[in-house]
């Protein structure tokens, strides 16, 4: 391998030299083009280019859409607009479901925190002995569940 280089030029490396020249040219070209695209003239040119493209494609696209709609109607098939509308309605349903799930989560969270909260100490009331006996064989109501949990 040769180290005979003069100012980046190595007489024994034609490919390397070619690359160096290429990169220097490209850098200059890149700087020029970057400046060019940042001008009002270029902005107008690119806008006109797009405008021309849109002006040319609009009648074709409108015609295709019209024919396609007629064809699909004759074939008893839904049009593009109808499918799009259906998709939009599905998204709305998804949004509602998402909100419902969030609300359900909130309700569940509230129930859990209620269940975990310590029950208020009931005021001491002398219970009638006959009422206690009557309640002994029945299922326990929902409210005592909390106090039962807190005593565990």
């Amino acid at each position: 391998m040769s180290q005979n280089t003069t100012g980046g030029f190595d007489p024994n490396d034609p490919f390397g030299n070619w690359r160096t020249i290429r990169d220097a040219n490209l850098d200059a070209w890149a700087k020029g083009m970057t400046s060019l695209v940042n001008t009002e003239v270029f902005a107008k040119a690119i806008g006109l280019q797009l405008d021309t493209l849109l002006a040319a494609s609009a009648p074709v696209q409108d015609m295709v859409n019209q024919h396609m709609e007629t064809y699909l109607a004759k074939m008893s098939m839904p049009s593009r607009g109808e499918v799009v509308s259906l998709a939009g309605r599905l998204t709305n349903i998804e949004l509602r479901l998402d909100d419902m799930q969030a609300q359900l989560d909130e309700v569940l969270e509230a129930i859990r925190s209620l269940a975990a909260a310590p029950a208020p100490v009931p005021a001491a009331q002398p219970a009638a002995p006959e009422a206690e006996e009557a309640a002994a064989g029945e299922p326990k109501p929902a409210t005592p569940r909390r106090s039962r949990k807190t005593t565990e």
Partner: protein
Amino acid sequence: MTTSSAASFDVEAMNQKLYEELQRLGKGTETMANLAANRMNVRIGQTPKEQIWALNKMRLFHFYPQTPPEQRKGIPLLLVFALINRPDIFDLRPGNSFVEHMVRQGYDIYMLDWGRPGPEDKHYDFEDYSIKFLPRAVRAMQRHSGSREFSMCGWCIGATITTIYAAMRPDDGLRNLILLTAPLDFADKEAGPYNKWLNTEFYNIDELVRQYDNVPGEIIDYGAKMLKPVENFVMNYLKLWDNLDNKAVVESWLAMNTWVTDGVDFPGAAFRQWVVEFFRENRLMEATLMMEGRPVDMKNIKASVLNVIADKDHIVPNCQSTTAMDKIGSKDKLLLEMRGGHIGLMVGSGASKRTWPQIDGWLAKRSESK
């Protein structure tokens, strides 16, 4: 040694160079053949994750933690990318992935994928994305993580969306907001080609949206590449050609190319709003952008803000981000200028050595559970 001139010409050295070049061409041909035969597909977005929520085309992913519970940060981090490219750039390749780095630092990472809009999504604008969809994704993340408080990181247009969210929902639990190359202030009409292109009367935005519903990703990609045409259309491919014998460079190039060419359509209404209300009328900065019947005012932002800009960003000039700092109402806010371009800021060896540690350092102090 056979030389005609010892100082300048050496036949043996020249032969050696030619041999090296031929060897390189041989390897390059093999690589080209593999590329042509699709045998060198590089997968991007490989950090293990699960989908935890979906709505319309949107999906929310959670990355599996890779650190013991005691080393994890207290609050989750939600990543939000722009509407016009895939969010996989946050998780490009193993060893070159912001997500992978942050997961290893103990962050609980979530990533929102906006998906690919269809014609039925053409009427969605920034209000929908910032106020309708993003809060729902946040809600799903809060439910999944069990933490009401969270951090959010928005990149490019994703940063604009997260800024709007932070201004409109300051009490929803957002503690930290990281903005990466955020386009927020469009007052300087001379800043960057986009401003000139989109402000011209020749740019018929209504007709474009009418014909296409959503602006095709190819047009967006073409516009982005035209900002630096020689670099993107010529030098990019020459870089690949010059390195065909270097597998690591080729794979890295392929990964980036896979992401760049996988463009996403810009929803019609959002694109129209982007051009008219952001670029032309600068409504976000002037607090005249209306959502939910009230102006979006960045003064309402309460979260700590880290605004990261890139010194060589040709897509979002620095002035589009820096001036917004005065408008943001947060008491704790920091502007950080890093080396790199719009994407290079967060991808590549420079990013892993400079940007990611800076973000991690700032966020770690603000991510403890209260």
